[in-house]
């Protein structure tokens, strides 16, 4: 098992829906891979293109943004903005020669505990198949950027 | 005599009374049928009901437990616990259809060689009359019994029985014995049913009707017991066949 590639994936989850669904998955004792690490934001509308690129730059193998169902955003339309930014980052990754599938947007309500687990499993499998992020593949000859 | 059925009987005799009684019977050259095989325990209280079920599973046709009379127990009240356990075991055997006649509890002091011999003779006769235990038909029941007897719930209830009903419960009162007996009976029944269901679904997922057929329980009872198992995360829904959900042991 030691050599099998274990991706590290960061998930930006909105406090009112996705984060609550993650908690619900917990209280339902569902299980999903430990590769997913959640960073909470008040609304996916707060996730900026720079935050997503920063994650990729830091070596994230996968990044996804999980927000409310379309039309149910607690702040009216934050999730729609998030989708536009994720799409833009996908284009940038393509330009960089990286697989756009490493970045994704999901929508779910706070009652969808099982769906949250499903997403975690799906993203982990997808990134495992894609392999480690090319950003991390080459050793860094010199000191990393300060 | 040889061709007829020869029952194999396992006996647990407490060291201070029944075992001594048995020796005295030997010294006194009293005669009783040779079908009994004896295991000496320091006290009849040491006999775990699971030993009896294991014996039946392993090939014995009857289990005989001998201990001191109430009040004579070398360890004050070991035999009182045996009494409660054997009563629970008897109830379980009745519910499972095997019948309580497969076990016998006898108090015999170190001096009562003759009563010991007589009870062995009688028990051997009764087992002979009952015929061999058809293990092939009773595998599910036996498996259910051993699972049920291993549950903390039954083992705890049978142990605490005297404490709460005779001495005092945590509220410094005596729990009404009828109430305790109701709790006990309900626990024995449901744990046995749940045990059988667990036995089946641990091998392969099954639906309610299949479980009802295999366990012989009414359909609705199976549904209720399944709910208990699900509540304690021992069973879970595992897919459907058309409109019929299948249940399996929880991962």
């Amino acid at each position, binding site marked *: 098992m030691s050599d099998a590639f274990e991706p590290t994936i960061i998930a930006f989850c909105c*406090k009112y829906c996705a984060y609550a669904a993650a908690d619900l998955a917990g209280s339902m004792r569902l299980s999903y891979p*430990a590769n997913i*690490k959640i*960073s909470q934001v008040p609304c996916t509308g707060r996730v900026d293109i720079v935050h997503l690129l920063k994650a990729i730059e830091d070596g994230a193998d996968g990044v996804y943004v999980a927000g409310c169902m379309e039309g149910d955003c607690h702040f009216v339309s934050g999730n729609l903005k998030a989708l536009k930014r994720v799409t833009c980052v996908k284009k940038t990754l393509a330009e960089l020669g990286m697989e756009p599938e490493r970045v994704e947007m999901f929508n779910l309500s706070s009652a969808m505990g099982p769906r949250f687990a499903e997403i975690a499993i799906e993203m982990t499998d997808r990134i495992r198949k894609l392999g480690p992020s090319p950003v991390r593949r080459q050793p860094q000859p010199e000191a990393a950027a300060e | 005599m040889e061709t007829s059925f020869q029952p194999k009987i396992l006996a647990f005799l407490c060291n201070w009374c029944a075992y001594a009684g048995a020796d005295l019977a030997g010294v006194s050259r009293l005669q009783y049928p040779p079908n009994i095989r004896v295991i000496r325990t320091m006290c009849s209280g040491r006999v775990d009901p699971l030993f009896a079920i294991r014996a039946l599973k392993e090939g014995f046709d009857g289990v005989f437990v001998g201990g001191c009379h109430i009040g004579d127990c070398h360890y004050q009240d070991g035999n009182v616990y045996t009494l409660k356990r054997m009563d629970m075991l008897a109830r379980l055997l009745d519910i499972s259809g095997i019948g309580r006649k497969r076990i016998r509890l006898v108090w015999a002091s170190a001096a009562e060689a003759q009563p010991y011999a007589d009870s062995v003779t009688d028990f051997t006769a009764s087992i002979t009359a009952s015929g061999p235990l058809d293990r092939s038909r009773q595998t599910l029941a036996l498996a259910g019994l051993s699972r049920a007897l291993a549950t903390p719930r039954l083992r705890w209830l049978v142990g605490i029985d005297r404490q709460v009903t005779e001495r005092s*419960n945590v509220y410094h009162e005596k*729990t009404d014995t009828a109430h305790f007996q109701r709790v006990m009976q309900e626990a024995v029944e449901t744990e046995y049913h749940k045990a059988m269901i667990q036995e089946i679904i641990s091998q392969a997922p099954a639906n309610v009707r299949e479980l009802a057929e295999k366990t012989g329980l009414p359909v609705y009872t199976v549904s209720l017991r399944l709910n208990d198992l699900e509540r304690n995360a021992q069973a879970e829904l595992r897919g459907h066949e058309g*409109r019929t959900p299948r*249940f399996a042991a929880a991962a």
Partner: protein
Amino acid sequence: MNLQKTTEKTGSVMVVGAGVAGIQASLDMANAGYFVHLVDNSTSVGGLMAQLDKTFPTNDCAMCVISPFLVEVGRHLNINIISNSEVESLEGQAGAFHATVRNDPRYIDIEKCTACGQCRQICPVTAINEFDCGLDLRKAIYIKYPQAVPLAYAIDRSACIGCGLCEKACLAEAISYADTPRRTVLNVGAVILSMGSSVYDPSGLDTLAYGRHPNIVTSLEFERILSASGPYKGHLMRPYDREIPEKIAWLQCVGSRDINRAGHGYCSSVCCMYAIKQTMIAKEHVSTPLDAAVFYMDMRTYGKDFDKYYTRAKDEKHVRFIRSRIHTIEPLKNGDLNIRYVLESGDVQEETFNMVVLSAGLSPPPSAIALAGRLGIDLNAYHYAQTADIRPVNTSREGIYVCGAFQGPKDIPQSVMEASAAAASATETLADVRWTQTKVRELPAEVDFSGQKPRIGVFVCNCGINIGGVADVPAIREYARSLPHVIHVEDNLFTCSQDTQEKIKQVLVEKGINRVVVASCSPRTHEPLFQETLREAGLNKYLFEMANIRDQNTWVHMASPAKATAKAKDLVRMAVAKAAYIEPLPQVMLDVTNSVLVVGGGVAGMEAALGVARQGYQAWLVERGHQLGGMARQLRSTWQGEPVAPYLSDLIDAVHRHEHIQIFMETQVVHVTGTIGNFTTTLVTQDDEGKEKSTVIPHGAAILATGGHEYAPTEYQYGAHPSVMTHLEFDVAATKQDNRLLSAKLAVFIQCVGSRSAERPYCSRVCCTHSLKSALWLKTINPDVQIFILYRDIRAYGFRESLYQKAREAGVQFIRFESENPPVVSLTPGDPSEPNSSRLSLTVTDHILQRPIILNPDLVVLASAILPNENKKLFEAFKVPANADGFLVEAHAKLRPVDFASEGLFLAGLAHYPKTIDESIAQAKAAVSRTMNIVSKTAIMVGSVIAVVNPERCAVCLTCVRTCPYGIPRIDPEKGHAVIAAVECHGCGVCASECPGKAIALKHFTDEQINAKTDALFQAA
């Protein structure tokens, strides 16, 4: 109005019954300056609503909606929850009651118990789980549901055998068997009864075989079956053999509208709606097709958006609605159920269903009836609290008020409205002792850490075995020691327990910790608790970050403890990295103008203005017409026969006389600015010479009660013949003893005129009751008149059903027509010389004979719809939304029925939705209570996770102005950069991410903080 000056009044109130109504009343009063004792005889608050899966008409999950309220009432400084207790007696009089309350033992210390559930797992004794209506079992030691408040277990002494096993398992040492019943005396100024209702037990109706077959369940049991926390985890299965049902039947009016067997003549008001909801939710829960059939007499979907919900179920979800009342259910061997019913065409139908849900009605709980007896308040024939229409929340005993389902069967929005109304009425007489009993949390001054390097304290929690049982907590703690800026680490069994909180406070002070990281459960539930502890240790509450290593780690990676430990370390490292960047955030205090603007001079407006004045605050009442009274001026009597005119004149007189009310007649609102607590409104008054005088009013809150008017029908020859009139015209004619009424031989009432149509797809709620009341009155003054009522559904909900019964007894004939085939009224011209000698003739298809019949009525009364008054400019001035039908849209249909989404603005009366006069009065009082949450305070606290503009970086590019969903940012012409008003910002952070100049930062979620967390995660990986 104040009683003997001598007896000193107490500024606290006792609320009996902690269902959704009790909670709303308690929160309203506690936030308006009164200490509340909330007594409930069960082990936790929440009442009936907590058992529901979803709620109509929005299909929101009930628990998601109610749990924030439960947490708020559980933590409120001025609400004392007295669970597991019964009120034994009440002495004294209004303003100074002494209530003796018996606290039954719980055998568990609420402060210590963390509801970790270990005791439940090993308790050997099972008992019927009442919360799941007996569908499954619970243990002798139990908690009603995971989100219960107070979040603590209880021992059911009747089941417990006292074996002591739970004490051995309880790590928090919370079990105390020595508990004994105690009596406490509460000195309160008023009492509110909100004991709610229980679901009717249909086992008495033997032909329905309830209780004899597991697949026949009551509606509440079906709700539990649908619920994810229910016996089958939300999978729809039938109890008997867990098969997924293909066909389910709902039987309406079980235990309601049934005088011969159930003894409940009234309609329970909610069963039609929850049955429709259950059909729709059931269909969503199964992947295989589900045929749902509802057997009913009248489909009573009278509330806001209810009719649309009913049409959606019928047309989109293809639910079958069959107008027939089932007598017998015949269980079959395989668990299915056979039903025989009569179609309208008369032939008998037999159908087999896999499951039958009995839409059981509501009835007052026996304990409530007993309590009412002890308190000496009058009950009506069905043991509900007896109330008058014009004083809907007052009981027969002075100082005791009632709300919710104990006042009468009703749905959640109506209960919540009445709860707020009761809160307003109860505190009216206690205005001068406001804020006398309430406690204020003494907080030490916040220590200023500016300039100091971060000194982070990390507290890792075991949460009993929930975390400690999976992840290696000591290893996590030691790992945290190695992280930058960390100067103190420790781990605890239960970080959230009271004693650990005290210990943490000392450590924070001793070690001069200026940032705190707690690695435990979810911030959604426990952040407020820890933030309060920080605040009590002198730290600003935002110097805090949580790592969720339970719900999002150990609970979901139980099978791989090593990975769970590694992930916990990652999460702690991320939290500590962000902690280094967080700054203290000031709580913005805003002072409040203590007055309320009320727009609209109808009954709702006047009751609201009077309510505010009686609470001791200034009310400005604005009416654009030239006289007060609105639609009520034409109403003759309430449904219980109370005359409206005297009540109206007393009300108008009281409004004119009260010195705290200033009235502006013929005045319109032209401009509104400001936010909650500080509105400024410009009014323009037309004086008689047509000159315009404008006045500027500062006020803290506003109530819109702009009312409605009757729809002028275009159909049924209205206007073409004097004897064709609307309801209000009938009432006016009745008051004048008009000859058209007295001499009428044949009178016909036509229902749903203009309502439930394509243009107005809503039910106007009051017309059925109005027609029944008018018909009965007409019979009294003109006994031999023959009366027909042509209807689509008779929606005389609640106790109004008695009118329907009396009308039938009085010989009124009812003919039902379908919307596609309405009655036709035509005019046969009489002798031309005779003025209006033309005769009316009416043809309608009789629903039983299935053949048209012709009547020649000399009186036709049209039950015409209620429309909202036209107020487009006013609504735009207040920036409040109106729905497609023109009615004002409330913030949340269920739990904030009188609030607008934008804070500080409230609504009442017909402008919200058509309603009877008693419901308007209740909603007006409710709005008053809601304004008191603001106006009764000198200052209010405003959120601090808000967006802030850095002027140097602002390129004034308008991006923020355009993207903010609430239109908050604006460009300040003098300052030359964007400005975001702290009080208005909702804190979503969209502008911060869109700003091209990176000029906007969302406090507590700045770029540095978010990036720090991301960098920390991938640092070590």
